[in-house]
């Protein structure tokens, strides 16, 4: 039988596969700048900001694929908009999420029982678990790492969160931990050995926090 801990062939196992561009900027930074610029262009109509991403050939090349993809997604939206009433803005965002996760997938992590040879890429699982944590009102999720895979195929989750001021942290973090564990099990089917939370900041509650959590 296949070793359940052995990851599938041909997938990245790098701790952090971010790429340093010849101009000295990280690939992830170029993507983040592209996203910021796209958002700013829509909301402020091109106000001057950091000119480097627009002028640097390396940064522009790094985001060229994203530009093409965004154009394609917008074309898809136009074509399908008349056909149904599906909310296409979240669709666009979800597609872009998939693209980003495909570009920086992280390592494969086991799904299901240890010997099943079923896997999910770390970045995909991490995105889901961050969203799960943020369904608890007041939580803002940060870094989520799924690093330690035990011999029984269970995974340890390490999640940084911002918590609201004025709540008893032990109870609060237990709610977050339980929510992450539940989603890992019910939505993904990824067995967790432990969910380690680190509260990196305490923030004043906002109006949003009064609602039943954020949209996953």
């Amino acid at each position, binding site marked *: 039988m296949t070793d359940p801990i052995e990851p599938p062939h041909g997938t990245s196992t790098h701790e952090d596969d971010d790429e340093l561009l010849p101009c000295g900027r990280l690939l992830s930074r170029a993507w983040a700048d592209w996203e910021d610029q796209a958002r700013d262009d829509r909301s402020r109509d091109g106000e001057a900001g950091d000119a480097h991403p627009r002028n640097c050939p390396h940064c522009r090349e790094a985001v060229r694929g994203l530009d093409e993809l965004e154009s394609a997604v917008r074309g898809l939206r136009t074509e399908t908009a008349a056909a149904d009433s599906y909310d296409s803005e979240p669709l666009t965002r979800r597609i872009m999420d998939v693209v980003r996760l495909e570009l920086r997938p992280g390592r*494969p992590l086991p799904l299901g029982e240890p010997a099943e040879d079923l896997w999910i890429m770390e970045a995909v699982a991490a995105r889901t678990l961050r969203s799960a944590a943020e369904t608890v009102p007041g939580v803002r999720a940060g870094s989520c790492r799924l690093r330690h895979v035990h011999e029984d195929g269970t995974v340890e989750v390490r999640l940084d969160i911002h918590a609201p001021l004025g709540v008893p942290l032990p109870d609060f973090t237990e709610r977050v931990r339980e929510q992450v564990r539940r989603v890992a099990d019910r*939505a993904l089917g990824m067995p967790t050995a432990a969910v380690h939370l680190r509260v990196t900041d305490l923030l004043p509650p906002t109006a949003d926090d009064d609602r039943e959590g954020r949209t996953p």
Partner: protein
Amino acid sequence: MNDHTSNTPYGRLAAELATSVTEVPGVAFLRPGLTDRLRTALPRSAPHSAGTAAGVRLTRPDGEGPWHVEIHVVALRQARTVDVARGVRDAVGHRLGVLAPGEPRPRVTVTVTGLL
């Protein structure tokens, strides 16, 4: 290791398996393939080529033994991810049994590379 992907005698088999994977409930599409799929939405793009084996890798590690089929899929959020992966594994095993009867039981590895 023999790699039986497109342009090999097993390329057609991989394409058949790809088709069976995309029919599994909860599967959005195979990876890679998102960009190609989106390009079909552009006015001047070529028609989507049916039977592409994107996201399917078919190998026979020791030449004669069982096949190793590696599948990379993007799944839908509304389905439980592990159940989608199991459905893919079962569909591939079943399809391979029909297409290549008498072969040793294949190893099927399924990796979910995105959720939509």
